[in-house]
């Protein structure tokens, strides 16, 4: 039985993790390498590194960090942020990334998904979609959720999957940061529309939110979160024990 994945997401700027983290056991809480190792040893099933750097120098630091991490962390690594061309795919895959997530880059040029899937396989291409309700309709937002593209989200996601996206991260802007649980309605709509793994993002505030997610929507494959893991509000090892007790297939 395939297990439900728990995925911490690390935002990296100029080679450091931002959104300050807070772990007693870590000496350098903003070192992506140390944090990645910590999560890996404590039960994370996969890691997402999100590059929020704007400069070329920051980008170079990011790939250095990625290489350094891939030398000591042996779980799947997904990289996102600033992926606009297949050269960007190449740059991070060479450093040990296993999957690459595209968001604004695919909105500007949907063919990027097709090109990358042809070169590296569907399993390597992850669509990340920032989605928000506008007048009762799910819309895709670009530029970190600041700009309404006007595109209907479910159609957009279906289109990207048909172009070759092998997984979809659905980030609900409506529930993001609220900590009141995942956006079950939005995720259900996506799960019914596509037959590739769906990763839920946005809204987790406590362990029970993950259990509700997987119990209510068995088609969801993974739950992604950032700050609740970084701030120690939810320890992944405890979360996974609770998932197992709730009879959710879990890797311990």
């Amino acid at each position, binding site marked *: 039985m395939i297990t439900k994945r728990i995925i911490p997401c690390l935002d990296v700027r100029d080679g450091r993790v931002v959104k300050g983290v807070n772990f007693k056991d870590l000496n350098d809480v903003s070192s992506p390498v140390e944090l990645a190792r910590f999560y890996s040893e404590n039960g994370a099933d996969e890691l997402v590194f999100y590059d929020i750097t704007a400069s070329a120098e920051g980008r170079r630091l990011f790939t250095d960090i990625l290489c350094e991490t891939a030398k000591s962390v*042996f779980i799947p690594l997904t990289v996102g942020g600033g992926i606009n061309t297949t050269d960007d795919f190449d740059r991070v895959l060479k450093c*040990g990334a296993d999957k690459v997530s595209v968001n604004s880059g695919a909105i500007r040029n949907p063919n990027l998904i097709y090109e990358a899937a042809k070169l590296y*396989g569907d399993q390597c291409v992850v669509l990340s979609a920032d989605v928000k309700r506008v007048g009762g309709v799910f819309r895709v937002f670009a530029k970190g959720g600041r700009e309404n593209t006007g595109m209907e989200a479910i159609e957009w996601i279906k289109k990207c999957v048909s172009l070759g996206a092998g997984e979809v991260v659905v980030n609900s802007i409506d529930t993001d940061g609220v900590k009141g649980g995942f956006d079950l309605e939005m995720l259900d709509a996506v799960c019914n529309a596509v037959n590739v793994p769906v990763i839920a993002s946005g809204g987790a505030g406590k362990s029970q939110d993950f259990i509700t997610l997987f119990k209510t929507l068995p088609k969801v494959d993974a739950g992604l979160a950032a700050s609740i893991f970084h701030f120690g509000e939810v320890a992944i090892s405890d979360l996974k024990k609770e998932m197992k007790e709730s009879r959710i297939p879990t890797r311990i």
Partner: protein
Amino acid sequence: MVAIIDYGVGNLFSLSASFRAIGTEVTVTSDPDVIRSADRIILPGVGAFEDAAKKLRASGLDVVVCEEAKRGKPILGICLGMQLLFEKSFEYGEHEGLGLIPGSVRPIADVIPKELKIPHIGWNALHFKGEKNPIFKYVNEGDCVYFVHSYYAADCEEAVCATAEYGAELTAAVFCGNVYGCQFHPEKSGETGLSILRAFCETEG
């Protein structure tokens, strides 16, 4: 020394890093002499069977791998590298493999219920078949490893030493004498994966 065969398929960064992490000397190479002098051989692979088989033959390294296998050198095929060890694959047509393990590679879609997603991607539990294989000496029944694949090894009951349940019993690992294969990625399977590589490095040559 472990030789990871470089025939232009996929990224070998994590694989070589994982051997370094367990303290094993490793080299990524396409040099037949280096492969012949290695203690053990890793045959990696991602992507499509036909393309990989063509590249392996074009490099001439298919012959070297088969010769070394017959000399008794331990060989481990990983993911598509495992599939290449079989006689043939039915991925987009019919293609010949190395034939080091009897059996064929077939679409998962043929054997699993329609509602399950393809590829089989994620962490799944290992179930041992028969006597516990030496490569699993540090692994417990039910430990999880990381899979990404749309085809599986079939018609190879005698060679199967572990399976994973995904709407059907899918071949997870095989062996035939000194030739081993993992459908999953040990280099992406955390401590469990590293312990499988360690055990492979300890198998008798």
